[in-house]
């Protein structure tokens, strides 16, 4: 009796660990497909001239702003620099995301992707991750800023780290909005314009906040940019992180629904 109880308990335990293993294996192969789609997206992006035009545009603007603040302004306080980087991102994120779905829709390759054993979530996450990798590569090109400042002025590096955390989170939200608009159309230009319009709206929405008593907090809370300012000042606030991640997943959720809508339209 006792032996069989122990036996069955062991059996259950191995059963559970077995199931856990299978589940983990499933999840890994699920993620692997996402990674394949993402990596193809990155490679495709860097075969287009738009990628290099975008990177040059970004580097020149960042370089100029850094020069203005550091050499002319003679300060090691880089919060203004990172505020401006976020504004420049608003212009280049539409270029990163506009092709994701719109191009595949135009060429018809979306039909082949979605009739492969790939779920809509995998396709959407893969494409989003691809653009996120491009964002990481782009942002890594500004890492010369902390390196130079550290060499010359030896500042506290904390605010730099928080600025990059903020840029990645804020960037992820922007990319998810771009991914959504790209999924709605087969025209890259329309996707880019709609993305830029949305980002601009969410950027300026906090501007009238001070004039509107009572509403000011509301507007500041829904403004994506306003939250980012805290990161650039060295403040990593959990509620901002939760806000950004939630917003990203919400936008991706709507993207999946849009991709799914082919089924019943």
């Amino acid at each position: 009796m006792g032996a069989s109880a122990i036996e069955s308990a062991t059996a259950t335990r191995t059963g559970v660990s077995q199931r856990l293993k299978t589940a983990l294996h499933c999840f890994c192969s699920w993620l692997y497909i996402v990674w394949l789609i993402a990596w193809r997206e990155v490679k495709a992006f860097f075969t287009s001239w738009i990628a290099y035009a975008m990177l040059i545009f970004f580097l020149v603007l960042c370089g100029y702003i850094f020069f203005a603040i550091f050499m002319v302004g003679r300060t090691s306080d880089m919060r203004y620099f990172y505020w401006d980087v976020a504004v420049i991102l608003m212009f280049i994120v539409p270029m990163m995301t506009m092709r994701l779905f719109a191009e595949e829709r135009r060429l018809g390759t979306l039909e082949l992707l979605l009739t492969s054993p790939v779920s809509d979530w995998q396709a959407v996450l893969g494409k989003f991750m691809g653009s996120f990798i491009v964002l990481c590569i782009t942002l890594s090109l500004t890492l010369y800023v902390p390196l130079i400042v550290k060499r010359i002025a030896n500042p506290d590096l904390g605010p730099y780290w928080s600025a990059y955390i903020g840029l990645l989170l804020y960037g992820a939200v922007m990319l998810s909005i771009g991914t959504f608009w790209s999924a709605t159309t087969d025209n890259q230009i329309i996707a880019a314009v709609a993305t830029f319009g949305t980002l601009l709206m969410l950027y300026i929405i906090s501007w009238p906040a001070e004039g509107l008593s009572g509403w000011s907090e509301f507007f500041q809370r829904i403004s994506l940019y306003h939250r980012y300012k805290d990161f650039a000042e060295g403040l990593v606030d959990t509620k901002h992180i939760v806000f950004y991640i939630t917003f990203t997943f919400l936008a991706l959720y709507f993207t999946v629904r849009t991709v799914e809508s082919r089924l019943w339209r």
Partner: protein
Amino acid sequence: MIEVHHLTKYYGTLKALDDVSFTVKRGEVVGFLGPNGAGKTTTMRIICGYLSPTDGTVKVGGYDVIENPIESRQLIGYMPETVPLYNEMTVRSYLHYMAAIRRVPKGKRKERVDYVVERCGLKEVVDNIIGTLSKGYRQRVGIAQALVHDPPVLILDEPTIGLDPIQVIEVRQLIKELGNDHTVILSTHILPEVSMTCKTVLIIHRGRIVAEDTPDGLERRLRKSERILVRLQRIPDDAVSSLERLPSVVRVERVHGENNLLAVEARPGTDIRPMIAEHVVNHGWGLLELRRDEMTLEEIFLNIITREEGVKV
């Protein structure tokens, strides 16, 4: 292998498919035949899980395409009509990518890619960028990507459209070979194509299946009466009436624009050729030619569709 039950699809208020049902057995090559806009592509897209039906069910290898989309798609290799490919990739990297997202195990991918490259005749262009390929090669890459995960089912939408005649022959030959170990559905609006490649033909018109048969059977079933063509050295005045008096013969007439050619219509199911031969020889009219008038699929196609129209009016 593929079971389609009462498929109906509306695009808005437009009825694209109307109660379509058919089954395809393992190893069969089935041709969808119909004019443009008949519902061929819609049916294929539903089977592949790109669209969902308004009503009805589709099962591929026992898996419902709506409830188990991943499992059913794993069994299908699909080539859409426009042959969409990623233009910036090389043929090799593209096929590797397609094999990977269709879950070909890592160790087997190279082998599978090499196999389909060989099979589809892509050896010379395997390291070329897809965007630079000719239409014929693109088409072959399209078929290669459909084959790369070794699916039991192949669905090819207009596989020979836009190819030059030599390429058309090559692609048809390839499809014929593939039919030996795959279940194939292909669509076309070119009639000789189905009789050349398919064992079964489904004729689709205005979203409905109006006929399903083998190319031969279709011909036989639709021939309302047997038509025999007889070419004689000379046709005396009484020849027509004398032939008409034979048993089973319905009508005899001269074929316009032909030299001394008579068309003899008989009741279906009887072969009157020996009798006619004997009759002609006995009368000494000089028999030059005697053959059954083959009805081409073209004629059958028109016949079926016009008949259906007649029913509706």
